[in-house]
């Protein structure tokens, strides 16, 4: 974990409302593991004082990129950022996704900026499996080609049917899982190892399936954060323990948890 007072290298529209912000990060860049995030101090945020967390989309010695959509005070204040502007980042934060288990079939499930959070995982994975991406409409589904180029079988699902299956991501995932033999105790389903990043209902839906059908699902949890480093205890979720539960900090102990660890509220 490092703090870098650095500069914007690139900033442009990506797709739909999504934008890509790339920042120089000679110290942080080389440390990044898939599923980790940055804590960004947005300049000119007026009288707002907290940083905002962003999943790391790409990272190397040349810099770190994030993919975001302006939805609130922080992300909207990012729009005018231009190359050369000063930014302040802390990262890489969190534990990220674990390595793919032996003989496991990797499945990526994402929605919104979740696709960004999974890109490094998709790249690193020794086996390329299936990627289920959900969105409201075709333009909300990010980076399809990038994942295809890496060798993933991308299966989009859109609420309006403008791309792939019509419906939620589960509308694409469930029939596929049935084919593998879900509910029939077949080997296929237990071999699945899911890496999921997206809105809470998607995380929960995938977590529930993992528990029901006995496969592994790593869920990247989204909780508001203040410090981002484990100090303030803002971002806690309930984690199952042998004799009950404990608070786990999303920023430090997560953001990735296995579905069985999580007690949903």
């Amino acid at each position, binding site marked *: 974990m490092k*703090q870098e007072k650095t500069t914007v290298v690139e900033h442009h529209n990506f797709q739909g409302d999504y934008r890509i912000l790339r920042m120089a990060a000679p110290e942080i860049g080389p440390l990044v593991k898939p599923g980790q995030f940055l804590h960004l101090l947005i300049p000119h945020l007026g009288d707002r004082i*907290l*940083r905002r967390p962003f999943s790391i989309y790409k990272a190397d010695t040349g810099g770190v990129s994030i993919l975001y959509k302006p939805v609130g005070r922080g992300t909207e204040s990012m729009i005018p950022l231009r190359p050369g502007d000063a930014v302040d980042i802390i990262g890489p934060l969190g534990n990220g996704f674990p390595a793919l288990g032996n003989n496991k079939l990797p499945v990526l499930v994402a929605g919104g900026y979740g696709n960004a959070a999974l890109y490094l995982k998709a790249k690193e994975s020794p086996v390329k499996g299936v990627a289920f991406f959900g969105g409201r409409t075709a333009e909300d589904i990010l980076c399809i080609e990038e994942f295809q180029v890496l060798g993933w079988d991308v299966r989009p699902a859109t609420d309006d049917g403008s791309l792939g299956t019509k419906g939620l991501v589960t509308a694409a995932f469930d029939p596929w899982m049935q084919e593998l033999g879900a509910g029939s105790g077949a080997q296929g389903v237990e071999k699945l190892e899911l890496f999921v990043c997206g809105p809470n209902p998607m995380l929960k839906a995938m977590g529930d399936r993992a528990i029901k059908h006995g496969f592994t699902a790593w869920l990247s949890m989204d909780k508001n954060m*203040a410090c981002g*480093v484990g*100090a*303030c*205890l*803002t971002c806690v979720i309930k984690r199952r323990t042998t004799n009950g539960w404990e*608070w786990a900090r999303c920023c430090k102990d997560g953001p990735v948890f296995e579905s069985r660890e999580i007690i949903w509220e």
Partner: protein
Amino acid sequence: MEPENSTPPPPNSPPKQPAMAVRIGSMTMRNPVTVASGTFGYGPEYADLVDLNRLGAITVKGIGPEEHIGNPTPRTFETRGGMLNAIGLPGPGAQGFIDKYVPFLAPYNVPVIVNIWGKNMDDYGKVVEILDDEETVSAYEINLSCPNVKEGGSAFGTDTDSFSRVIELVRGKTQKPIIPKLAPNVSDIGAFAKAAEDSGADAISIMNSYPAMAINIDTLEPELANRTGGLSGPAIKPIAIKLVWDAAKATKLPIIGMGGIYEPEDAIEFMIAGATAVAVGTANFTDPSTVARVIDGIEDYLEQKGHSSVADIVGTVKA
């Protein structure tokens, strides 16, 4: 300009560095800057980003007698110029602190101030009994003002009688410096400062976050699960400065000042108002380099103004 009759420094002698050390009872801080309890975890959380040995002291998150789960989430909320928190003092308890964090803290060459709290009078005594043999524990900050636990806590901070009794109780259990942390939501902070002195405290710290609230106008729910919380950050600094100034008039005890310190100038303002030491709180979340920047900035200021010691500026406000 040199006064005419001063002896010029011998050529090439290094410029005199101002003395930065301050004392809080029997505890010496190498400089007057610590961190505010609850904003810096227990030490390890910021160790990658902040050189802990540079701090005047590490003040850890509030410790109760036993493990405590704290409040449900959301626990914090950003406001204009500040933030609300209602963390609710989750933590490993006194023994848990010894097991989990003392081994990490012990090797550092920096005093550790343990912030302690209790649901009732006895709890405060228990925490101290468990912790007091630990050499790593240098002093106790007694949280008598947490706005976020229903039981006791803040009530002790707004009634001088129970306030004094907690301090006397703790005083009876330890030789280490004890530093009651005063509640800001009182009409007469001087009375509490005086009560702390009379009850055997070694110093006081001012201020805790201010009881406050925010409501979501779409859901009609409070933004914090605990409904109310404490306001901290730049917004409250002018309130904290006045409380420190008022308290300094009422007591000779050293004061640890805090509330919205973001820049060295803020820390210096607290010291001029009467604080012997200062704590950086919410600013750690915004920029973990604040503590180092504040220490350097105080030193620069002392040099620039020609002071030989940080003590020279404490309470110098012309008011």
